[in-house]
């Protein structure tokens, strides 16, 4: 179960010295602590009977000295452990970030954004504090516990046997209760999750719940779940709160035995009063340390769980290997799809099937069909976001799998449905990833995307700052900047995936004209649910349930393709509701 965390330890490279030094200094600290009871014993056995005040003062001086030396070694240890743990965690964080960036779309789909973000933040923080604690306590606690026992042996092997009995018994109780608590708290967490779900559900579904007059039964369901939670919590609390009283009792029983047998041995002259007191002190030290150890192990289990979750992401490797070619083979067709099919991982049916399509350079193609018919899937095969599960996709005569990643991303620019903008200037957002583009080129890309008004409205021009997610822009402005971003790269193939849906008809029309007159005349592929957005394309591909049901010009399809005609009639002729 510690497998994942152990594998993460490779990130400790560069912090090996810290990883050794921190626990070592902790051990030194522990040794000073262990010597303390012996000093006290000397005071009682030597100093007091002889009435030597100087000796007593000297011994107390030694105690302070031990304390100071202990403090210094602790501080050194804390410094090394903080440095080691933080350094390790930040190496993991950078490594994980880079790893996630290297993943292909298929893996990103599977992992999901929100889990990745939790792993990058919460889980890594958890590991950091876990490692920090480990460096500090892993060696210290056992040294104190077993050290106390060994010291007892040096004082009197017979008395030490009491330690040999008490330590395992205490450990059994401490760790037994701890394991039970971990299990019980997991159940509490699960129960809490159901309460959380119910709460969220009732907020999101407030309208429906009220429309169906379900308020009362929902409250009843909640009360029931909340009751269960409370019961689980109380039970878990009861078990875990046995720990302190029980261990306290056991240690005192140990001390009672110690004093009793010690008394017998003092009577027969084997032991001295001071040594009995020393043994008593050692027993007390053990208890304090075992409780610390138990708490430490609880945080360690959290750390291990987080470590495993992080390692899980590292273990997902990109399923895509890129080729080495950057040039195409022929200029006849820009894009060719030959018998292409695709199904998402874990899905039983095809998202698209048996698609054949060839697009000449400079041609414009529309793709239309209802939601979920496979339009977006189809176009994401062209820049090789995904690999086709059947058939071949070619760009300029060459299989996409033979191109380098750079070549693919410079050939094809996809403007996605949801224009994602980052916090930063317009320049940063539009230039995104395109190296060495001049301001005038950026401006002309923005003009072509019909977003020029944005530059004119704001005196800062390209330096105008966009907030996270583009909150200070309208939906249409965001989409046009998304298009400008693609144009800034002067792609040979431009794909617009429903990326003009927030534009009004007039703007969309002028966008269409300006894209049509670009001097490098790219292939333009427009994906839409709206007939009006694709009817002007040279050819239109009609998709229905992942299959091509028509391909041709607008008039041709109206005459020959029933699905297209149906779409056309339900939209164009009912314009009133078409955008509702």
């Amino acid at each position, binding site marked *: 179960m510690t497998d994942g965390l152990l594998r993460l330890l490779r990130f400790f490279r560069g912090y090996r010295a810290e990883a050794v030094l921190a626990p070592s200094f902790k051990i030194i600290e522990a040794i000073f602590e262990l010597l303390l009871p012996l000093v006290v014993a000397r005071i009682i056995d030597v100093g*007091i009977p002889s*009435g030597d*005040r100087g000796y007593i003062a000297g*011994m107390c001086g030694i105690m302070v000295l*031990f*304390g100071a030396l*202990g*403090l210094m070694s*602790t501080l050194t240890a*804390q410094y090394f452990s*903080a440095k080691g743990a*933080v*350094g390790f965690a*930040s190496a993991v*964080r950078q490594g994980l*970030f*880079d790893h996630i960036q290297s*993943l*292909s779309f298929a893996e*990103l789909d599977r992992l999901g*954004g929100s889990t990745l*973000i939790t792993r990058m933040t919460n889980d890594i923080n958890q590991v*950091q504090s876990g490692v920090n604690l480990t460096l500090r306590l892993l060696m210290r606690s056992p040294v104190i516990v077993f050290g106390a026992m060994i010291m007892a042996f040096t004082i009197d092997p017979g008395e030490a046997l009491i330690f040999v009995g008490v330590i395992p018994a205490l450990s059994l109780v401490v760790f037994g209760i701890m394991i039970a608590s971990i299990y019980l708290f997991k159940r509490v967490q699960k129960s809490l999750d159901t309460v959380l779900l119910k*709460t969220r559900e*009732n*907020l999101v579904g407030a*309208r*429906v719940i*009220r*429309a*169906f007059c379900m308020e009362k039964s929902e*409250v009843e369901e909640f009360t029931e779940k*909340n009751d269960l939670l*409370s019961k689980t*919590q*109380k039970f878990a609390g*009861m078990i875990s709160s046995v720990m302190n*009283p*029980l261990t306290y*009792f056991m240690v005192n029983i140990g001390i*009672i035995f110690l*004093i009793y047998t*010690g*008394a*017998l041995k003092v*009577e027969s002259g084997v032991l001295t*009063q001071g040594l009995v*007191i020393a043994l008593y002190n050692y027993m007390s030290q053990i208890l304090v340390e075992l409780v610390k150890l138990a708490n430490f192990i609880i945080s360690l289990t959290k750390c291990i769980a987080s470590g495993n979750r992080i390692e899980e992401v590292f273990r997902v490797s990109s399923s895509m290997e890129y080729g080495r070619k950057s040039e195409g083979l022929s200029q006849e067709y820009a894009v060719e799809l030959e018998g292409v099919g695709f199904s998402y991982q874990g899905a039983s049916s095809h998202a698209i099937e048996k698609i054949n399509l060839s697009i000449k350079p400079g041609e414009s193609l529309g793709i239309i069909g209802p939601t*979920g018919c496979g339009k977006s899937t189809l176009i994401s095969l062209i820049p090789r976001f995904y690999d086709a599960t059947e058939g071949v996709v070619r760009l300029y005569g060459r299989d996409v799998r033979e191109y380098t990643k750079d070549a693919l991303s410079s050939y094809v620019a996809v403007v*996605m449905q949801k224009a*994602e903008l980052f916090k930063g200037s317009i320049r940063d957002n539009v230039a*995104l*990833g395109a190296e060495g583009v001049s301001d005038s080129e950026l401006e002309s890309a923005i003009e072509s995307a019909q977003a020029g008004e944005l530059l004119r409205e704001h005196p800062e021009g390209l330096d105008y700052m966009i907030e*996270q997610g583009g909150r200070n822009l309208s939906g249409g402005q965001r989409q046009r900047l998304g298009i400008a971003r693609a144009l800034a790269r002067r792609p040979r193939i431009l794909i617009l995936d429903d990326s003009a849906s927030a534009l009004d*008809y007039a703007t969309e029309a002028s966008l269409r004209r300006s894209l049509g007159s670009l001097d490098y005349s790219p292939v333009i592929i427009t994906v839409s649910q709206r007939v009006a957005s694709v009817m002007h394309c040279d050819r239109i591909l009609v998709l229905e349930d992942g299959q091509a049901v028509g391909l041709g010009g607008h008039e041709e399809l109206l005459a020959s393709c029933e*699905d297209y005609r149906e779409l056309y009639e*339900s939209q*164009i002729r*009912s*314009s009133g509701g078409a955008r509702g």
Partner: protein
Amino acid sequence: MNAVKKLLRYLRGYRAVMLLSMLLAAGSVLLTLYVPIIFGDAIDLIIDRGNVDIKGVVSLLARAGIVAAAASLMQWLMNIINNRIAFETVRDLRDTAFKRISRLPLSFIDSHSHGDLVSRVIADVDQLSEGLLLGFTHFFTGIVTIAATLCFMLTISWPITIIAVVLTPLSLFVARFVSKSTYELFRGQSRIRGEQTSLIDEMIGSQKLVNAYNYTKKSHDRFSEINQRLTGISVKAIFLSSLVNPTARFVNAIVYAAVGLAGALCVIPNASGEALLTVGGLTCLLSYANQYTKPFNEISGVVTELQNAIACAERIFELIEAEPESSDEGLKRLEGVKGNVSLDSVSFSYSPERPLIEGLCLSAKPGQRIAIVGPTGCGKTTLINLLMRFYDVTGGAVRVEGNDIRELTRHSLREGYGMVLQETWLKSGTIAQNIRMGRQDATDDEIIAAAKAAHAHSFIKRLPNGYDTVIGEDGGSLSAGQKQLLCITRVMLKRPPMLILDEATSSIDTRTEIRVQRAFEKLMEGKTSFIVAHRLSTIMSADLILVMKDGHIIEQGTHDELLERKGFYSTLYNSQFAH
């Protein structure tokens, strides 16, 4: 502090138990402190070879055993009681909060982030229970421990007690100093962490874009820069904050040595041959000195925890005390609904500065079909909000069968409507439970019949457990279209006299849509229906078309009337031919 008072009100029922808990705490502390004294006495009986009072030792040890057992038992009982008080209080709080949520006006729910409300009910309450528990367990015990330790020490030797008392504040002082200087560092750390999280959020949230546009190198650099800054400040913050314990321990060691020195000197008999302290007394003092400072640290920890808990309690009470909807009590039930709905110069706005609907009049007769048309965000949802009385009109009145709906109970009004919204909502539970929301007492056969009518039966049948398949949060693995079919099934089961369909078939594929539409036609026969639609056929056959724009109803009439008027509707209708 207000929150504390309110919290105390919730705790009022536990007054007796709380008193018991305090008594147990005091008892267990006193007994715990008594144990070292007994051991000290026992050690005093073990002086030297041949000078040991075994009998005395045994009887003292037996007493120690009993006292220790009693102390443990009392501590455990106290823990159980504290658990009960804390967990039951938060259970009551959660119940109250949830009940309040079910009675909050929708305007409240719409205007607050759901995540924030959920975290009040879950995370804040949790934090509060933690705080209560720690408060009960450590606060009182800590104070008793300090007071009692001092008393016990005083009975043994007052000069040594004074030494301990004078020296201990040193450790508190050090702790204060350290935590003050770490505060800034921790703030800096969380600021950089926040910066990093928002970059992670942006980059990983848009990972596909970053990939597609080859932005990885640049984002690596940005991340790495923040990461290095974070590393620098974290090392400092963690190191500094970890100084508290060792320095406190060092101060403790000094106290220990001082007590040891003074104590040992007192044990040595003075000139007149009498000793101020016994060896046993010294051991006892040393063991006290060892644990004397612990409660101080605990209490200061508990104080922060309590402050935190009170902040959380405030957030919870804010929710619990939010103004609920006006009560339904004393209102009459709507009965015998035929479907006469009228809007009487209704005006409405979400905020007074921005009037939305003004002077809207409309009258729908039983069996009529009203289509609502207009671009996204034009206020169609608002109209539904008013009809269902999710919101109250700000002027005029909505009437059903001649009754102002504000004079009817909400349940009786809503029972008259069947509603399918574009945004589907399913509760976690089985398919059957979800459908049954339409009518609680429906039989299984009726459910299946409704599912067949909504064309949902065939996909439900194919699910692993059919109608008993449990679906997770928000429909879990069902597709958007399947979820919508389930919502339609609910209404098919309910068969209400009035219908509200808001783009009810938007996620369904074209073929099924046509079939579902046919089923709706049948359902709508003789019923009053309000439909937000995009299909030409639905709109054209409506008895009345409402054309909405920017929150206003700008035109109303039948399809032909509106075309003739050559207004917004006819522009919308004709616009696409212009291209």
